[in-house]
Protein backbone atom coordinates (compact mmCIF):
# COMPACT_ATOMS: atom_id res chain seq x y z
CA UNK A 1 0.00 0.00 0.00
CA UNK A 2 2.75 2.43 0.96
CA UNK A 3 4.51 1.41 -2.22
CA UNK A 4 1.51 2.38 -4.34
CA UNK A 5 1.22 5.77 -2.64
CA UNK A 6 4.90 6.47 -3.19
CA UNK A 7 4.68 5.54 -6.84
CA UNK A 8 1.61 7.73 -7.28
CA UNK A 9 3.34 10.69 -5.62
CA UNK A 10 6.43 10.21 -7.77
CA UNK A 11 4.37 10.17 -10.93
CA UNK A 12 2.51 13.35 -9.94
CA UNK A 13 5.79 15.07 -9.22
CA UNK A 14 7.17 13.99 -12.56
CA UNK A 15 4.21 15.32 -14.53
CA UNK A 16 4.10 18.59 -12.61
CA UNK A 17 7.77 19.18 -13.33
CA UNK A 18 7.28 18.30 -16.95
CA UNK A 19 4.52 20.88 -17.29
CA UNK A 20 6.66 23.46 -15.52
CA UNK A 21 9.52 22.81 -17.87
CA UNK A 22 7.31 22.96 -20.91
CA UNK A 23 5.95 26.27 -19.60
CA UNK A 24 9.47 27.55 -19.13
CA UNK A 25 10.45 26.52 -22.63
CA UNK A 26 7.35 28.05 -24.20
CA UNK A 27 7.74 31.29 -22.25
CA UNK A 28 11.33 31.44 -23.40
CA UNK A 29 10.25 30.87 -26.97
CA UNK A 30 7.81 33.75 -26.70
CA UNK A 31 10.42 35.96 -25.17
CA UNK A 32 12.08 38.94 -26.72
CA UNK A 33 15.52 37.42 -27.10
CA UNK A 34 14.02 34.51 -28.97
CA UNK A 35 12.17 36.98 -31.21
CA UNK A 36 15.50 38.56 -32.07
CA UNK A 37 17.00 35.16 -32.80
CA UNK A 38 14.02 34.33 -35.02
CA UNK A 39 14.49 37.54 -36.95
CA UNK A 40 18.13 36.67 -37.58
CA UNK A 41 17.17 33.13 -38.48
CA UNK A 42 14.53 34.24 -40.97
CA UNK A 43 16.90 36.81 -42.42
CA UNK A 44 19.44 34.04 -42.89
CA UNK A 45 16.90 31.81 -44.59
CA UNK A 46 16.06 34.59 -46.96
CA UNK A 47 19.50 35.81 -47.85
CA UNK A 48 21.72 32.88 -46.87
CA UNK A 49 24.74 35.13 -46.47
CA UNK A 50 26.31 33.57 -43.41
CA UNK A 51 25.54 29.92 -44.02
CA UNK A 52 26.83 29.83 -47.57
CA UNK A 53 30.13 31.51 -46.90
CA UNK A 54 30.62 29.55 -43.69
CA UNK A 55 29.95 26.23 -45.39
CA UNK A 56 32.41 27.07 -48.18
CA UNK A 57 34.97 28.19 -45.63
CA UNK A 58 34.81 24.87 -43.79
CA UNK A 59 35.26 22.96 -47.04
CA UNK A 60 38.19 25.16 -48.07
CA UNK A 61 39.89 24.96 -44.67
CA UNK A 62 39.72 21.18 -44.53
CA UNK A 63 40.83 20.92 -48.15
CA UNK A 64 43.86 23.11 -47.53
CA UNK A 65 44.92 20.87 -44.67
CA UNK A 66 44.34 17.73 -46.71
CA UNK A 67 46.38 19.04 -49.61
CA UNK A 68 49.24 20.27 -47.44
CA UNK A 69 49.49 16.90 -45.74
CA UNK A 70 49.40 15.07 -49.03
CA UNK A 71 50.10 11.37 -48.63
CA UNK A 72 52.00 11.74 -45.37
CA UNK A 73 50.77 10.01 -42.28
CA UNK A 74 50.12 12.40 -39.44
CA UNK A 75 50.40 11.29 -35.82
CA UNK A 76 47.14 10.82 -33.98
CA UNK A 77 47.78 13.59 -31.47
CA UNK A 78 48.19 16.06 -34.31
CA UNK A 79 44.75 15.35 -35.75
CA UNK A 80 43.17 16.38 -32.45
CA UNK A 81 44.93 19.74 -32.56
CA UNK A 82 44.13 20.33 -36.24
CA UNK A 83 40.47 19.65 -35.53
CA UNK A 84 40.36 22.64 -33.20
CA UNK A 85 42.34 24.75 -35.66
CA UNK A 86 39.60 24.24 -38.25
CA UNK A 87 36.95 25.00 -35.63
CA UNK A 88 38.70 28.19 -34.51
CA UNK A 89 39.13 29.62 -37.99
CA UNK A 90 35.61 28.67 -39.05
CA UNK A 91 34.29 30.44 -35.97
CA UNK A 92 36.33 33.51 -36.88
CA UNK A 93 34.85 33.41 -40.34
CA UNK A 94 31.21 33.14 -39.37
CA UNK A 95 30.44 34.41 -35.89
CA UNK A 96 31.19 38.10 -36.21
CA UNK A 97 28.30 38.59 -38.57
CA UNK A 98 25.74 38.70 -35.77
CA UNK A 99 26.87 42.16 -34.72
CA UNK A 100 28.88 43.41 -37.67
CA UNK A 101 25.96 43.08 -40.10
CA UNK A 102 23.71 45.15 -37.83
CA UNK A 103 26.36 47.81 -37.42
CA UNK A 104 27.19 48.01 -41.12
CA UNK A 105 23.58 48.37 -42.19
CA UNK A 106 22.85 50.89 -39.47
CA UNK A 107 20.24 48.77 -37.72
CA UNK A 108 22.15 48.83 -34.41
CA UNK A 109 20.31 52.04 -33.63
CA UNK A 110 16.99 50.34 -34.35
CA UNK A 111 17.84 47.51 -31.96
CA UNK A 112 18.85 49.99 -29.26
CA UNK A 113 15.42 51.58 -29.56
CA UNK A 114 13.41 48.39 -29.23
CA UNK A 115 15.28 46.21 -26.77
CA UNK A 116 17.38 46.42 -23.63
CA UNK A 117 21.08 45.52 -23.96
CA UNK A 118 20.73 42.17 -22.21
CA UNK A 119 17.93 41.14 -24.58
CA UNK A 120 20.10 42.01 -27.57
CA UNK A 121 23.05 40.05 -26.22
CA UNK A 122 20.93 37.02 -25.38
CA UNK A 123 19.34 37.02 -28.81
CA UNK A 124 22.68 37.28 -30.61
CA UNK A 125 24.24 34.70 -28.32
CA UNK A 126 21.43 32.30 -29.10
CA UNK A 127 21.99 32.76 -32.81
CA UNK A 128 25.74 32.23 -32.50
CA UNK A 129 25.23 29.23 -30.22
CA UNK A 130 23.07 27.46 -32.77
CA UNK A 131 25.44 28.45 -35.57
CA UNK A 132 28.43 27.08 -33.62
CA UNK A 133 26.72 23.77 -32.94
CA UNK A 134 25.65 23.31 -36.56
CA UNK A 135 29.06 24.35 -37.84
CA UNK A 136 30.96 22.08 -35.47
CA UNK A 137 28.76 19.06 -36.14
CA UNK A 138 29.51 19.47 -39.85
CA UNK A 139 33.22 19.90 -39.13
CA UNK A 140 33.29 16.87 -36.84
CA UNK A 141 31.55 14.68 -39.40
CA UNK A 142 33.67 15.84 -42.32
CA UNK A 143 36.82 15.58 -40.28
CA UNK A 144 36.25 12.05 -39.05
CA UNK A 145 35.32 10.97 -42.57
CA UNK A 146 38.42 12.46 -44.19
CA UNK A 147 41.08 11.85 -41.54
CA UNK A 148 41.34 8.18 -40.73
CA UNK A 149 43.61 8.79 -37.76
CA UNK A 150 40.83 10.77 -36.06
CA UNK A 151 39.12 8.02 -34.11
CA UNK A 152 37.13 8.77 -30.97
CA UNK A 153 37.34 6.04 -28.43
CA UNK A 154 35.45 7.60 -25.50
CA UNK A 155 32.39 8.86 -27.26
CA UNK A 156 30.48 10.07 -24.19
CA UNK A 157 33.47 12.13 -23.08
CA UNK A 158 33.76 13.62 -26.55
CA UNK A 159 30.09 14.57 -26.54
CA UNK A 160 30.43 16.35 -23.23
CA UNK A 161 33.60 18.13 -24.35
CA UNK A 162 31.87 19.10 -27.58
CA UNK A 163 28.88 20.65 -25.81
CA UNK A 164 30.87 22.52 -23.16
CA UNK A 165 33.51 23.83 -25.57
CA UNK A 166 30.93 24.98 -28.08
CA UNK A 167 29.17 27.01 -25.42
CA UNK A 168 32.46 28.66 -24.43
CA UNK A 169 33.35 29.30 -28.05
CA UNK A 170 29.97 30.92 -28.74
CA UNK A 171 30.06 33.15 -25.65
CA UNK A 172 33.58 34.47 -26.21
CA UNK A 173 33.10 34.91 -29.93
CA UNK A 174 29.88 36.84 -29.41
CA UNK A 175 31.28 39.35 -26.93
CA UNK A 176 34.39 39.95 -29.05
CA UNK A 177 32.17 40.31 -32.13
CA UNK A 178 30.27 43.02 -30.26
CA UNK A 179 33.55 44.82 -29.53
CA UNK A 180 34.89 44.74 -33.07
CA UNK A 181 31.54 45.69 -34.60
CA UNK A 182 32.11 49.13 -33.09
CA UNK A 183 35.74 49.39 -34.22
CA UNK A 184 37.34 49.86 -37.63
CA UNK A 185 39.07 47.10 -39.67
CA UNK A 186 36.59 44.51 -38.38
CA UNK A 187 37.56 41.41 -40.29
CA UNK A 188 41.26 41.28 -39.51
CA UNK A 189 40.86 42.37 -35.93
CA UNK A 190 38.43 39.61 -35.01
CA UNK A 191 40.87 36.65 -34.84
CA UNK A 192 43.53 38.90 -33.27
CA UNK A 193 41.26 39.81 -30.37
CA UNK A 194 39.59 36.43 -30.03
CA UNK A 195 42.63 34.19 -29.95
CA UNK A 196 44.09 35.21 -26.56
CA UNK A 197 40.63 35.02 -24.99
CA UNK A 198 39.91 31.61 -26.50
CA UNK A 199 43.36 30.21 -25.78
CA UNK A 200 42.54 28.58 -22.41
CA UNK A 201 39.49 26.98 -24.01
CA UNK A 202 41.42 25.72 -27.03
CA UNK A 203 44.29 24.31 -24.98
CA UNK A 204 41.94 22.45 -22.67
CA UNK A 205 39.76 21.20 -25.53
CA UNK A 206 42.76 19.90 -27.47
CA UNK A 207 43.94 18.07 -24.35
CA UNK A 208 40.47 16.60 -23.84
CA UNK A 209 40.17 15.60 -27.49
CA UNK A 210 43.40 13.64 -27.33
CA UNK A 211 42.09 12.03 -24.16
CA UNK A 212 38.98 11.04 -26.09
CA UNK A 213 41.07 9.56 -28.85
CA UNK A 214 43.17 7.60 -26.37
CA UNK A 215 40.08 6.30 -24.66
CA UNK A 216 40.75 7.88 -21.26
CA UNK A 217 38.15 7.41 -18.59
CA UNK A 218 35.78 10.06 -17.37
CA UNK A 219 37.36 10.31 -13.91
CA UNK A 220 40.76 11.15 -15.29
CA UNK A 221 39.38 14.00 -17.41
CA UNK A 222 37.21 15.49 -14.69
CA UNK A 223 39.58 18.35 -13.95
CA UNK A 224 39.75 19.38 -17.60
CA UNK A 225 35.97 19.33 -17.93
CA UNK A 226 35.67 21.41 -14.76
CA UNK A 227 38.06 23.94 -16.27
CA UNK A 228 35.91 24.33 -19.37
CA UNK A 229 32.77 24.63 -17.28
CA UNK A 230 34.39 27.39 -15.19
CA UNK A 231 35.49 29.15 -18.34
CA UNK A 232 31.94 29.06 -19.71
CA UNK A 233 30.40 30.43 -16.53
CA UNK A 234 33.01 33.15 -16.04
CA UNK A 235 32.91 34.34 -19.66
CA UNK A 236 29.10 34.38 -19.63
CA UNK A 237 28.98 36.48 -16.47
CA UNK A 238 31.67 38.90 -17.62
CA UNK A 239 29.99 39.30 -21.02
CA UNK A 240 26.61 40.23 -19.58
CA UNK A 241 28.15 42.71 -17.19
CA UNK A 242 30.29 44.40 -19.83
CA UNK A 243 27.93 44.36 -22.81
CA UNK A 244 26.16 47.56 -21.71
CA UNK A 245 29.40 49.52 -22.02
CA UNK A 246 30.01 48.28 -25.55
CA UNK A 247 26.49 48.66 -26.80
CA UNK A 248 25.54 52.13 -25.61
CA UNK A 249 27.34 55.14 -26.98
Amino acid sequence: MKDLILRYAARQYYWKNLNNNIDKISSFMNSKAFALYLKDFRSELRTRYAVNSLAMFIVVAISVILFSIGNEKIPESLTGGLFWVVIFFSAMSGLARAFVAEEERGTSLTLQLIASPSTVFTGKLLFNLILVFLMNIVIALLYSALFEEFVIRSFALFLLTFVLSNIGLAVSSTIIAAIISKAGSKGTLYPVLSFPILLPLILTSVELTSNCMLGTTFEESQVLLAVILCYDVIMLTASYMLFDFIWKD
Partner: protein
Amino acid sequence: MKNFDIIWKTFLFLLLAFVSVAGIAFPIVENPVHWYQFPMIRGLEENAKIIFFHVPTAWLTVIAFLMSTIYSIKYLRKKNLDDDAKSYAAAQLGIIFCILATVTGSIWSKFAWGAYWSWDPRQTSIFALLLIYGAWFALRSSIESEDKRASLSAVYSIIAFVTVPFFIFVMPRIMLGLHPGSEEIVDGKVMQSASPVIDFKMNGNMLLIFFLSLAAFTILYFWMWKLGYKSLIYKDKIQKQISRG
Protein backbone atom coordinates in the same frame (compact mmCIF):
# COMPACT_ATOMS: atom_id res chain seq x y z
CA MET B 1 58.84 68.80 -3.15
CA LYS B 2 61.58 69.24 -5.72
CA ASN B 3 64.29 68.40 -3.22
CA PHE B 4 62.45 65.28 -2.20
CA ASP B 5 62.23 64.27 -5.87
CA ILE B 6 65.99 64.54 -6.26
CA ILE B 7 66.54 62.52 -3.12
CA TRP B 8 64.44 59.53 -4.11
CA LYS B 9 65.59 59.57 -7.71
CA THR B 10 69.20 59.47 -6.57
CA PHE B 11 68.35 56.70 -4.16
CA LEU B 12 66.70 54.74 -6.99
CA PHE B 13 69.73 55.24 -9.21
CA LEU B 14 72.09 53.97 -6.51
CA LEU B 15 69.83 51.02 -5.78
CA LEU B 16 69.58 49.99 -9.41
CA ALA B 17 73.31 50.43 -9.90
CA PHE B 18 74.04 48.28 -6.87
CA VAL B 19 71.60 45.61 -7.94
CA SER B 20 72.96 45.49 -11.48
CA VAL B 21 76.54 45.24 -10.31
CA ALA B 22 75.74 42.74 -7.58
CA GLY B 23 73.55 40.71 -9.85
CA ILE B 24 76.11 40.39 -12.57
CA ALA B 25 79.45 40.63 -10.89
CA PHE B 26 79.23 38.80 -7.58
CA PRO B 27 80.83 35.42 -8.07
CA ILE B 28 79.10 32.12 -7.58
CA VAL B 29 81.15 29.66 -5.59
CA GLU B 30 80.70 26.25 -4.02
CA ASN B 31 80.82 27.25 -0.41
CA PRO B 32 80.16 30.93 0.06
CA VAL B 33 82.40 32.42 2.65
CA HIS B 34 82.42 36.15 2.05
CA TRP B 35 79.27 38.29 2.07
CA TYR B 36 79.45 38.96 -1.63
CA GLN B 37 79.49 35.36 -2.73
CA PHE B 38 76.46 33.37 -3.90
CA PRO B 39 75.91 29.63 -3.52
CA MET B 40 76.12 27.33 -6.49
CA ILE B 41 73.21 25.35 -7.84
CA ARG B 42 73.99 22.24 -9.83
CA GLY B 43 73.22 22.68 -13.47
CA LEU B 44 72.75 26.44 -13.29
CA GLU B 45 76.05 27.80 -11.98
CA GLU B 46 76.68 31.30 -13.31
CA ASN B 47 73.37 31.51 -15.13
CA ALA B 48 71.42 31.65 -11.88
CA LYS B 49 72.04 35.37 -11.90
CA ILE B 50 69.41 35.84 -14.54
CA ILE B 51 66.86 35.37 -11.79
CA PHE B 52 67.60 38.91 -10.65
CA PHE B 53 66.34 40.26 -13.95
CA HIS B 54 63.91 37.72 -15.32
CA VAL B 55 61.60 37.46 -12.33
CA PRO B 56 61.20 41.23 -11.83
CA THR B 57 60.27 41.76 -15.48
CA ALA B 58 57.69 38.98 -15.34
CA TRP B 59 56.37 40.37 -12.06
CA LEU B 60 56.15 43.90 -13.47
CA THR B 61 54.36 42.92 -16.64
CA VAL B 62 51.62 41.36 -14.52
CA ILE B 63 51.49 44.42 -12.24
CA ALA B 64 51.24 46.65 -15.31
CA PHE B 65 48.39 44.57 -16.69
CA LEU B 66 46.60 44.68 -13.35
CA MET B 67 46.97 48.46 -13.18
CA SER B 68 45.83 48.90 -16.76
CA THR B 69 42.70 46.90 -15.96
CA ILE B 70 42.04 48.79 -12.71
CA TYR B 71 42.17 52.13 -14.52
CA SER B 72 39.98 50.66 -17.25
CA ILE B 73 37.36 49.84 -14.64
CA LYS B 74 37.70 53.36 -13.23
CA TYR B 75 37.20 54.80 -16.69
CA LEU B 76 34.05 52.79 -17.27
CA ARG B 77 32.57 54.14 -14.06
CA LYS B 78 33.48 57.80 -14.32
CA LYS B 79 34.23 58.29 -18.04
CA ASN B 80 37.20 60.46 -17.15
CA LEU B 81 39.72 60.36 -19.98
CA ASP B 82 42.60 60.81 -17.53
CA ASP B 83 41.95 57.28 -16.31
CA ASP B 84 42.23 56.10 -19.89
CA ALA B 85 45.63 57.81 -20.20
CA LYS B 86 46.81 56.09 -17.02
CA SER B 87 45.63 52.76 -18.34
CA TYR B 88 47.46 53.34 -21.62
CA ALA B 89 50.71 54.36 -19.93
CA ALA B 90 50.59 51.21 -17.80
CA ALA B 91 50.01 49.03 -20.86
CA GLN B 92 52.93 50.63 -22.72
CA LEU B 93 55.27 49.68 -19.91
CA GLY B 94 53.57 46.34 -19.60
CA ILE B 95 54.28 45.29 -23.15
CA ILE B 96 57.92 46.35 -22.87
CA PHE B 97 58.38 44.30 -19.72
CA CYS B 98 56.51 41.42 -21.31
CA ILE B 99 58.93 41.34 -24.24
CA LEU B 100 61.86 41.53 -21.80
CA ALA B 101 60.43 38.73 -19.71
CA THR B 102 59.91 36.52 -22.75
CA VAL B 103 63.45 37.18 -24.00
CA THR B 104 65.20 36.72 -20.63
CA GLY B 105 63.02 33.67 -20.08
CA SER B 106 64.03 32.04 -23.33
CA ILE B 107 67.71 32.78 -22.69
CA TRP B 108 67.44 31.10 -19.30
CA SER B 109 65.47 28.30 -20.89
CA LYS B 110 68.31 27.64 -23.35
CA PHE B 111 70.82 27.27 -20.54
CA ALA B 112 68.66 25.36 -18.13
CA TRP B 113 66.60 23.08 -20.33
CA GLY B 114 68.44 23.10 -23.62
CA ALA B 115 65.90 24.81 -25.88
CA TYR B 116 64.84 28.41 -26.34
CA TRP B 117 61.16 27.53 -26.24
CA SER B 118 59.27 24.43 -25.15
CA TRP B 119 55.65 25.46 -24.57
CA ASP B 120 55.88 24.97 -20.84
CA PRO B 121 52.66 26.36 -19.28
CA ARG B 122 54.39 29.44 -17.84
CA GLN B 123 56.01 30.13 -21.19
CA THR B 124 52.63 29.74 -22.85
CA SER B 125 51.13 32.19 -20.35
CA ILE B 126 53.70 34.90 -20.97
CA PHE B 127 53.22 34.40 -24.69
CA ALA B 128 49.44 34.70 -24.23
CA LEU B 129 49.98 37.91 -22.26
CA LEU B 130 52.09 39.25 -25.12
CA LEU B 131 49.26 38.42 -27.53
CA ILE B 132 46.76 40.18 -25.25
CA TYR B 133 48.88 43.33 -25.15
CA GLY B 134 49.36 43.23 -28.91
CA ALA B 135 45.63 42.77 -29.52
CA TRP B 136 44.82 45.61 -27.11
CA PHE B 137 47.08 48.05 -28.95
CA ALA B 138 45.73 46.86 -32.32
CA LEU B 139 42.19 47.49 -31.10
CA ARG B 140 43.07 50.97 -29.92
CA SER B 141 44.69 51.97 -33.16
CA SER B 142 41.60 50.95 -35.14
CA ILE B 143 39.19 53.33 -33.39
CA GLU B 144 39.05 57.02 -34.19
CA SER B 145 36.72 58.42 -31.56
CA GLU B 146 38.40 58.97 -28.18
CA ASP B 147 35.42 57.91 -26.08
CA LYS B 148 34.77 54.76 -28.08
CA ARG B 149 38.45 53.88 -28.06
CA ALA B 150 38.63 54.23 -24.31
CA SER B 151 35.49 52.23 -23.53
CA LEU B 152 36.08 49.39 -26.00
CA SER B 153 39.69 48.89 -24.95
CA ALA B 154 38.59 49.05 -21.32
CA VAL B 155 36.08 46.25 -21.92
CA TYR B 156 38.64 44.14 -23.75
CA SER B 157 41.16 44.69 -20.98
CA ILE B 158 38.69 43.41 -18.40
CA ILE B 159 37.73 40.37 -20.47
CA ALA B 160 41.39 39.52 -21.04
CA PHE B 161 42.09 39.97 -17.34
CA VAL B 162 39.38 37.46 -16.53
CA THR B 163 41.13 34.78 -18.61
CA VAL B 164 44.52 35.38 -16.98
CA PRO B 165 43.78 33.33 -13.82
CA PHE B 166 43.25 30.36 -16.12
CA PHE B 167 46.81 30.66 -17.34
CA ILE B 168 48.41 31.36 -14.02
CA PHE B 169 46.70 28.87 -11.77
CA VAL B 170 44.94 26.26 -13.77
CA MET B 171 47.24 25.38 -16.63
CA PRO B 172 50.39 24.68 -14.67
CA ARG B 173 48.44 22.35 -12.41
CA ILE B 174 46.97 20.27 -15.13
CA MET B 175 49.70 20.25 -17.71
CA LEU B 176 53.24 19.01 -17.47
CA GLY B 177 55.83 21.71 -17.30
CA LEU B 178 59.49 22.48 -16.96
CA HIS B 179 59.31 25.52 -14.72
CA PRO B 180 60.32 25.04 -11.14
CA GLY B 181 57.26 24.13 -9.16
CA SER B 182 55.22 22.54 -11.96
CA GLU B 183 54.46 18.90 -12.49
CA GLU B 184 56.85 16.66 -14.25
CA ILE B 185 57.36 13.03 -14.92
CA VAL B 186 59.74 11.31 -12.53
CA ASP B 187 60.18 7.57 -12.81
CA GLY B 188 57.11 7.34 -15.00
CA LYS B 189 54.82 9.00 -12.48
CA VAL B 190 53.54 12.56 -12.60
CA MET B 191 54.40 14.50 -9.49
CA GLN B 192 55.18 17.95 -8.21
CA SER B 193 58.60 18.97 -9.33
CA ALA B 194 61.30 18.94 -6.75
CA SER B 195 63.11 21.73 -8.57
CA PRO B 196 63.36 24.82 -6.50
CA VAL B 197 61.27 27.85 -7.39
CA ILE B 198 61.89 30.75 -5.16
CA ASP B 199 63.02 28.41 -2.43
CA PHE B 200 65.82 28.45 -4.83
CA LYS B 201 68.47 27.46 -2.33
CA MET B 202 69.34 31.12 -2.24
CA ASN B 203 71.25 32.02 0.81
CA GLY B 204 70.59 35.20 2.75
CA ASN B 205 72.67 37.46 0.52
CA MET B 206 71.19 36.19 -2.68
CA LEU B 207 67.69 36.63 -1.34
CA LEU B 208 68.56 40.16 -0.31
CA ILE B 209 69.83 41.12 -3.75
CA PHE B 210 66.82 39.43 -5.28
CA PHE B 211 64.31 41.40 -3.24
CA LEU B 212 66.27 44.60 -3.70
CA SER B 213 66.14 44.06 -7.44
CA LEU B 214 62.41 43.46 -7.28
CA ALA B 215 61.90 46.63 -5.23
CA ALA B 216 64.15 48.72 -7.46
CA PHE B 217 62.42 47.66 -10.65
CA THR B 218 59.01 48.26 -9.10
CA ILE B 219 59.93 51.81 -8.09
CA LEU B 220 61.36 52.38 -11.56
CA TYR B 221 58.10 51.16 -13.08
CA PHE B 222 55.95 53.52 -11.03
CA TRP B 223 58.19 56.42 -11.89
CA MET B 224 58.05 55.69 -15.62
CA TRP B 225 54.31 55.16 -15.42
CA LYS B 226 53.76 58.54 -13.79
CA LEU B 227 55.88 60.26 -16.40
CA GLY B 228 54.05 58.35 -19.12
CA TYR B 229 50.50 59.24 -18.20
CA LYS B 230 51.29 62.83 -17.34
CA SER B 231 52.90 63.39 -20.72
CA LEU B 232 49.90 61.77 -22.44
CA ILE B 233 47.47 64.06 -20.64
CA TYR B 234 49.52 67.18 -21.38
CA LYS B 235 49.94 66.20 -25.02
CA ASP B 236 46.17 65.81 -25.35
CA LYS B 237 45.49 69.16 -23.73
CA ILE B 238 48.01 70.95 -25.91
CA GLN B 239 46.55 69.40 -29.05
CA LYS B 240 43.09 70.55 -28.02
CA GLN B 241 44.42 74.09 -27.45
CA ILE B 242 46.03 74.12 -30.86
CA SER B 243 42.97 72.82 -32.69
CA ARG B 244 40.76 75.31 -30.95
CA GLY B 245 43.08 78.02 -32.28
